[in-house]
């Protein structure tokens, strides 16, 4: 800037017309921008809430049935000849249970029918009875009434989760049928649906001397392929009735002159397609149940009021099982609990100690800066990496027990520690310096300042951070998978900090992987229970924060 510009007087005061059109436009635009910002925020929140509601409602609607078990009441005679009083554990409870169930169906006698019949009961039913008798040995020799769970398909049938009948045709097959209809290739003949096909009677496949011995099925396949050139070869069997070839054969036998010619012929379609055209839908009995007879047996149980649907306490008191109706979460809840206790003890003590040192005592130098950066980085490390570390160090080097909650808790605490350290440091920083000065001013030493004044004031923040860290740990799956906490533990006797165990998220993971229909709702139920625990923990955090919060 030149010297004259530096010393020249300021320019005249400019007037601004606040009422001009451009000014009004600017005001309008400003208001519009404010509103847009508001709408964007509202929209995001609304979307979030809607998605959350969808998630929750889907979880609840899928998971709710798992909180009920369908049971059948049995009149059991605990035969002393089958169950000895000395060693009731070795008794033949299978026979007792099956006999009691068979009593309801005296007319079912054949072996194969009986096998079908017993499938209505849970395969674990004899074990339920055994457990009941072991708990009450005085029942041996008596008639007792005891309800055992139904097996999974019947349980699901009772709850209406799976239907009795399902659609016989796949979506693709139904589309084929739709196309046939649109091309007017279908007609009703004597109450049966027939397909109007153009068939070439191939002389290579049928002999004029012996028309009855010809191979007519390939000709039909050829005719179908002419209509649907790109469909799979199996559709001929899907669309046409098994006797369609016979219809062609009959026609050719009656008029051998047709050999080598092309003719229009109405051939019968398959049962399912027939149903589809005449009634609009083709249903078959759900193949999951095997023989259709089972529905009659199931219905008769229902008619006799032998089926009862109760709150499934087993979901909370049973260990895992191969059978969905028997599978419970006790092992997973206990495993999660022990892991969290270990995680809490390790990370709370170490986290607060580390945070206090870094915040109150550590000199500010490159080394402490490095530590600080690394703690912040640790918080962002993917949890699966901690799992690998646990696998290599805790299991590999130190040889600690595999799948145990102790190791699980240690791995989780690696993950929680940075969260707690960061939260604690933030809470310590938030304590006003005036309180420290006041304490120092009356001659409190460093540890007195910290333990008497700073920590109590920081405690709400520390607890909130800790509980949020623990809630994260509760939901963590990947590190637990790596140290083997997705084990299948069907026994509740082996619950302990060093025993193999599983945890809630890993249980959800393995249930979600299981093909049985009952595990679908159990998975959702387990997720609901996990969410319930998380909700309780976060509510506790809020409660503690409000309880310990003091104003200054």
């Amino acid at each position, binding site marked *: 800037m030149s010297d004259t510009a530096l010393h020249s007087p300021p320019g005249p005061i400019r007037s601004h017309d606040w009422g001009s059109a451009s000014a009004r436009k600017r005001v309008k635009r400003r208001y519009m921008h404010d509103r847009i910002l508001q709408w964007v925020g509202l929209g995001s929140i609304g979307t979030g809430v809607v998605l959350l509601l969808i998630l929750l409602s889907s979880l609840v609607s899928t998971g709710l049935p798992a909180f009920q078990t369908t049971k059948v009441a049995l009149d059991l005679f605990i035969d002393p000849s089958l169950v000895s009083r000395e060693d009731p554990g070795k008794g033949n409870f299978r026979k007792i249970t099956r006999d009691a169930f068979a009593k309801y169906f005296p007319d079912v006698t054949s072996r194969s029918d009986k096998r079908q019949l017993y499938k209505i009961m849970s395969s674990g039913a004899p074990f339920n009875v055994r457990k009941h008798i072991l708990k009450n040995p005085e029942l041996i020799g008596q008639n007792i009434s005891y309800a055992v769970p139904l097996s999974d398909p019947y349980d699901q049938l009772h709850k209406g989760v799976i239907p009795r009948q399902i659609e016989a045709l796949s979506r693709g097959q139904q589309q084929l049928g739709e196309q046939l209809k649109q091309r007017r290739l279908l007609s009703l003949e004597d109450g049966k649906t027939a397909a109007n096909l153009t068939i070439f009677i191939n002389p290579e496949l049928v002999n004029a001397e012996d028309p009855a011995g010809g191979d007519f099925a390939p000709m039909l396949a050829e005719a179908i392929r002419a209509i649907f050139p790109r469909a799979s070869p199996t559709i001929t069997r899907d669309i046409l009735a098994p006797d369609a070839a016979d219809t062609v054969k009959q026609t050719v036998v009656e008029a051998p002159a047709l050999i080598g010619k092309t003719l229009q012929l109405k051939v019968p379609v398959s049962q399912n397609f027939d149903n589809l055209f005449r009634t609009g839908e083709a249903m078959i009995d759900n193949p999951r149940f095997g023989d259709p007879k089972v529905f009659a047996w199931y219905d008769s149980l229902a008619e006799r009021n032998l089926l009862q649907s109760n709150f499934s306490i087993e979901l909370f008191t049973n260990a895992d099982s191969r059978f969905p109706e028997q599978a419970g979460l006790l092992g997973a809840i206990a495993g999660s609990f022990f892991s969290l206790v270990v995680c809490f003890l390790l990370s709370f003590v170490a986290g607060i100690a580390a945070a206090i040192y870094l915040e109150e005592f550590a*000199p*500010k130098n490159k080394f402490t800066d490095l530590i600080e950066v690394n703690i912040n980085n640790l918080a962002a490390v993917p949890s699966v990496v901690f799992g690998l570390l646990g696998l290599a160090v805790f299991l590999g080097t130190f040889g600690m027990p595999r799948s145990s909650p102790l190791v699980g808790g240690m791995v989780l605490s690696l993950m929680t520690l940075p969260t707690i350290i960061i939260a604690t440091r933030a809470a310590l920083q938030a304590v*006003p310096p*005036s*309180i*420290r*000065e*006041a*304490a*120092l*001013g*009356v*001659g*409190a*030493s460093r540890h*007195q300042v910290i333990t*008497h*004044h700073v920590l109590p*004031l920081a405690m709400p923040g520390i607890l909130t951070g800790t509980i949020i860290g623990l809630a994260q740990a509760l939901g963590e799956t990947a590190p637990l998978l790596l140290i083997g906490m997705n084990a299948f533990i069907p026994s509740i006797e082996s619950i302990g900090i060093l025993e193999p165990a599983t945890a809630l998220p890993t249980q959800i993971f393995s249930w979600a992987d299981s093909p049985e229909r009952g595990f679908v709702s159990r998975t959702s139920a387990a997720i609901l229970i996990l969410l319930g625990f998380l909700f309780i923990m976060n509510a506790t955090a809020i409660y503690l924060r409000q309880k310990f919060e*003091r*104003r*200054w």
Partner: protein
Amino acid sequence: MADVTPSTSKKKSGKAKPAPKGKAKAPEAKTNGNSTDATGLRTKTDRPLTSSRQDLALDQSTKISSSDVCVFYGDKQALFDVNVDILSNHVTALIGPSGCGKSTYLRCLNRMNDVIDIARVTGNIIVDGIDIYDPDVDVVELRARVGMVFQKPNPFPKSIYENIAYGPRIHGLASSKSDMDEIVENSLKRAGLWKEVHDRLHEPGTGLSGGQQQRLCIARAIAISPSVILMDEPCSALDPIATAIVEELIEELRQNYTIVIVTHSMQQAARVSQRTAYFHLGYLVEYGETDQIFQAPKDERTQNYITGRIG
């Protein structure tokens, strides 16, 4: 440390700003020469006298003696060679424009600067014959003997009773519950707060009004029987009525305690103090009887400040 640092700091300050130092010395020497004070206040330049413990022991009325006190915040020097003798049972006011180092000096007297990582103090500060920057000195005990009241009332977020009882408890001053009750009552009475709070001792101290909170802090400071009370602008957050009450209280407390008060209000300094020190840009410019400082300042900068031309 005491042998080496003063000379280096002197060198530094001498290079940085030689003029103020010379000016600061001259009037003080005169003041002391003219002083009729029976205690025979030593001149600030007379280093050997102030740093000698024997002399201090003889001189009963000098409570705190500081010589060549320099404070550094990192590389920045905040105080340059401050030499002040603070007399027993006097109220000494430290005045000066913002950032002149008066609070920094005050915080040196009970080593509150220790908590600031980058702060470094050189020179000698002798309280009751003991060099408080000696490595053997227990900081906790020092702070118990040199109490402090802060600019903003900062009661602990605890009950009124607990606020007072905390200090005596950690120092083991009370042998029993009734003993503690007595300490609390006496402290509150001395701080003129007893009448207002005696029926609600177990309510939170933070629920009191600002003026009451500050008196609670004063009561908390005197509960551990200090001999010196440092006050860092104790009335700056208070209204005029509360200020008047606290000022009256300071006058009463002078009977038993030595008080050093930092204030921004020259009227307040004139009202409550017997001696005044004027700081400017880290230098002690002038120190003497309050009446003399306000009526016949020797230094031009003091004159400018008290007449409102700077600061």
